[in-house]
């Protein structure tokens, strides 16, 4: 379990028993470890309250907000028990300057209702990062002050980083081939 908690006790809670296996919990969400990096898995409903707890617990900066489209994922999702994998996953990283600690949060966002609450009021630095996730993956952030496309032109249709959006590569004619270019 975690060791360096000096403030509130929301950081490490009593482990939860589920189907006879202990799941470590923190901030109200199950914890997993990815190559020794701590990852929590909040639900969509918990998202803002978990972020608020993280801020209260000393994670003073939101480092990164990104998203992943698991549509064509060939491997195992490796999520803790009780968390169902959805098509989209919003991944946010936080850092505590004081404790020199990082934590990552992965939230599942279903395809049918691809929206999630925005962290803008808690971590204003997530402003541009959330816009990028919206633009390239199509996950909308409720409560964001200006959710508009940031990378692609405003009239662009489609969300390029989705797995069902083609890379857009054109076949290349090499020298010597009888082509117009």
């Amino acid at each position, binding site marked *: 379990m975690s060791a360096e908690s000096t403030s509130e006790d929301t950081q490490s809670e009593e482990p939860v028993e589920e189907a006879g296996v202990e799941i470590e919990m923190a901030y109200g969400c199950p914890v997993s470890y990815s190559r020794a990096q701590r990852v929590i898995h909040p639900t969509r409903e918990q998202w803002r309250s978990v972020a608020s707890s993280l801020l209260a617990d000393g994670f003073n900066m939101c480092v990164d907000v990104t998203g992943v489209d698991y549509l064509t994922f060939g491997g195992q999702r490796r999520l803790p028990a009780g968390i169902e994998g959805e098509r989209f996953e919003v991944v946010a990283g936080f850092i505590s300057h004081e404790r020199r600690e990082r934590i990552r949060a992965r939230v599942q966002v279903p395809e049918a209702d691809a929206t999630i609450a925005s962290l803008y009021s808690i971590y204003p630095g997530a402003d541009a990062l959330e816009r990028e996730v919206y633009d390239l993956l199509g996950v909308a952030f409720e409560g964001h002050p200006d959710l508009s496309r940031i990378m692609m032109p405003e*009239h662009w249709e489609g969300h390029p980083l989705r797995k069902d959006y083609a890379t857009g590569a054109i076949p290349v004619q090499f020298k010597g081939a009888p082509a117009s270019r």
Partner: protein
Amino acid sequence: MTVTDPTPETADADPVTPVVPAPSTITIDDDGLLTQLDKLPRRNAVLRMSEVRAAELVDEPLDGENDQTMLVNMGPSHPSTHGVLRLMLELDGETVRRSKPVIGYLHTGMEKQAESLTYLQGPTNVTRMDYAAPFFNELAFSLAVEELLGIEIPERATWIRMLMSEMNRISSHLLFMATNGMDLGAVSMMIYGWREREQVLRFFEMVTGLRMNHNYIRPGGVAADLPDGWRDEVLALMDMLPPRLEEYDILMTGQPIWRDRLQGVGTMTAEEAIALSATGPVLRSAGVPWDLRRDEPYLAYDQVEFDVVVGTYGDCFDRYAIRLNEIRESMRIVRQIVDKMPRGDYRVQDTKVTPPPRARIDESMEALIHHFKIFTEGFKVPEGETYVAVESPRGELGCYIVSDGSSKPYRMHFRGPSFVNLQTMSHMMADSLIADAVAVISSVDPILGEVDR
């Protein structure tokens, strides 16, 4: 937690606790959740208008008395926006009331492209993100891939990476000196900065074969060993630079015009910087002594001594002074690397990951097969996801990779420090003149390649 007052140029690196300014208040909003919006007193300076709407305003009739402000476009093709950054400025006379940085003019789809390139081709792709500091992109990518692979690279490879990274920091900060000087009118600074930078680029050409976008730091180590005589070249560079940096001090640092243009311009408090997720010199100028090389050491930074340069006022002058002194700190690190460089391999000997030496391909069938497999199919990386961050000259450069067990990344995301630091610009430019806006953009030192990816 007390806040000590760091001196403007250097601060002692306390290895135990970083002295981070405590937040003045903790605000709870209506939902009972914490909020940091009150830490941003100038948040109304962010113009939230769509580009389409702004274009429509041209055709609308004037609003009479209410029409005191003017919406002016700056960029994307502009001599001092550091690349293709477009700024929509709402001006009241010459004062900038609100502004909106519009990006995406260099969006290259690198994250999508990475999904169709193998892990060995990955560094060629990511190195073109922050093209002024290409080694850092390659480093972040390679560290993330090595974390997923679970391999440890030889010590010499680590130290070579550190050497190239610090030399790259020097060349990137020299580029900043040059462009910052030119933007503010010291046009000859452009020539001086490039004069020094050329020497560093010649060293890079000697080691990696290319002046820019090297694809040298690869998963498993580096592409080739340092050439013979590298120590002499590096030490010649280290001897050449300090007098030149003193020239910059004479030309710029002590000069009244320079100080008037930069001091007090584009100020940012520590709380604002942290709330806006700023990192790098932008964060350190506000007084927050956070540097990943010291606080979350990677490579071998815990075995070299250097200071973290921290500012006090959070203005453009602090950011300029921080970068100038970071050149000196990097030179210090480079001298220590020259002394301490270990012998050994320059890449891991695992033939499943690194290609065998070209000479062996003629001799051994296995080497030929490994070479073939690595360059056509690529090596497979175990499933998982990881995030690795390095301290680039612009801030925290992070690489997030999700692997599905195949030879190409399933998802690769780069946290570009300039992308996040750009958010601070509207706050810094509020109620300042257009000329100050140029100074602010220049002091944030964005590289649009990593902003847009």
